[in-house]
């Protein structure tokens, strides 16, 4: 409906102005700054064209950071999907203690990650930590989980999986609920009785779009990993846990090389945009069921 344009403007102006000032223009500024050598506090800046991007390409720290981020993303997404889907199927398969299990798996999602990171630091403590104490109890080798360059990234990924599985779980539970009972009944009439058969032939195909969607949700979150890295390893030891946002943070806010950090941010934004587009595509597919 059309109303007085003045009234419409009154409703829309605050939101539009803030979107431009706080979101769209800053991203444009980041893009522009990525072509300069600007350092925070410097009075002048020079256009350097693609120099920052060329430097990124040969920067071993950035390359390491990008590789670590991707590895973290794959491990965490895969782990969360497997645990989330497995738990969702098991929870749904019977009625007992459903609420309790859902709550237990979702608790990490509901808790303040930074506080829990400090708890994890304690759990993974080389001497006093529960994890090593348990390992020693059953006669296994203890490890220095966060200070061993072979292990540190996987330790962070394990914490990431612990935090994200509950989210995957509830998204899968919602997906499972949307599978009509008729289809399962029809399957049973067709002689699909064994639970594994039912999963392979009915549930999994129907859950396909949900799975793609959950993958993108987890991947977007994993790409934004920062908290655990900053609190537990600071990117170390020896850059073994350096990830994209942490590198941006160090370049931009410790070394104040804002131009260079902006170029990294552009790479980060590109990754997020790509995953978001993928997600929208999966959401459109989802509506067909």
């Amino acid at each position, binding site marked *: 409906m059309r109303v007085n344009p003045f009234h419409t403007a009154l409703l829309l102006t605050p939101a539009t102005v803030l979107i431009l000032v706080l979101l769209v223009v800053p991203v444009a500024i980041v893009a522009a700054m990525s072509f300069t050598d600007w350092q925070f506090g410097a009075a002048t800046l020079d256009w350097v064209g693609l120099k920052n991007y060329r430097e990124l390409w040969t920067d071993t720290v950035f390359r390491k950071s990008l590789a670590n981020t991707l590895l973290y993303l794959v491990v965490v997404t895969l782990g969360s999907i497997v645990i989330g889907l497995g738990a969702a199927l098991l929870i749904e398969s019977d009625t007992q203690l459903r609420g309790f299990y859902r709550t237990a798996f979702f608790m990490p999602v*509901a808790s303040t990650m930074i506080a829990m990171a400090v708890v994890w630091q304690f759990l993974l403590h080389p001497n006093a930590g529960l994890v090593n104490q348990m390992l020693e109890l059953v006669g296994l080798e203890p490890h220095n989980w966060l200070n061993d360059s072979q292990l540190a990234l996987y330790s962070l990924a394990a914490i990431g999986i612990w935090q994200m599985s509950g989210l995957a779980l509830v998204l899968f539970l919602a997906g499972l609920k949307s599978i009509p009972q008729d289809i399962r009944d029809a399957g049973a009439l067709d002689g699909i009785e064994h639970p594994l058969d039912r999963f392979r032939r009915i549930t999994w195909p129907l859950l396909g779009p949900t799975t793609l969607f959950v993958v993108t949700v987890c991947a977007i979150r994993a790409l934004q990993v920062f908290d655990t890295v900053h609190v537990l390893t600071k990117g170390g030891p020896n850059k073994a846990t350096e990830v994209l946002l942490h590198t941006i943070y160090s370049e931009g806010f410790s070394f104040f090389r804002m131009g260079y950090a902006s170029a990294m941010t552009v790479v980060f934004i590109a990754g997020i945009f790509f995953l978001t587009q993928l997600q929208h595509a999966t959401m459109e597919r989802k509506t067909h069921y």
Partner: protein
Amino acid sequence: MKRPSNLFRSLRHLVLMAGAVIFLMPFIWMVLTSLKPADEIFSRELSLLPTRLALVENYTLALTKVPLLRYLWNGVVVCAAILVLQILVALPAAYAFAKLEFRGKTWAWRLVLLALMIPHQATAIPIYVMLHRLGMLNTLSALIVPFSISAFGIFLMRQFFRTVPDDLVHAARLDGMSELELVWRVMLPTAIPALFAFSIFSVVWHWNDYFWPLLVISSPELATPPLGTIFFRNEEAGTNFGPLMAGTVLITAPLVLFFIAAQKRFIEGVTLTGVKG
């Protein structure tokens, strides 16, 4: 559907219970450790329960060594201010997109969808510089103002407002209500469930955010709970685990208790991140 066999049901409990124990272990261990004195925490043999209860000293230390209650209060103020601003800004716009026709609507909507994709970390550098120029770094406003707009809030509420019958809007206009009045007195009351879900989404996000407070806040008395936790850890010895765990118990308690009290709502709100990304 056929009832599962007893063997399957026991296996189901075995697997899920093992998973649940692992997932809850950090919480259990955090609470237990917050009750133990230092010598028991560092003793070589593993014991579940404290033999000497150090509840009072650990929690007293956590509350006196750093201004923990101040952090929690800052968190409440920041989250409440962000939420109020987000609602004030987003609801009128959502109404306009849902119920009104105007020139440039398609383009304006594309702008919202574009903004929806932008993660907060992406704008950190220019906004930091902006706040620096305005002399606003290290103030609570620096934690609030950058988040006053939620493109996701506009998106979500617009979807909801579209389901509100047009007749309701017409009737309100016939009663002589202005458009702005209509938003708050007619649309808002119909949107309470959606608004509740959005509020949980927003509060959980900003309560837990660490990246932004880390950038803009340097004074301990302005810290939010996550930043305060790290101040505490760095201040009070990274190894004095009893009081440290007492601190993390107090910091995680508000959201966890809220989650346990209003699970369905909470999950609804948090899973909105699925749509937001």
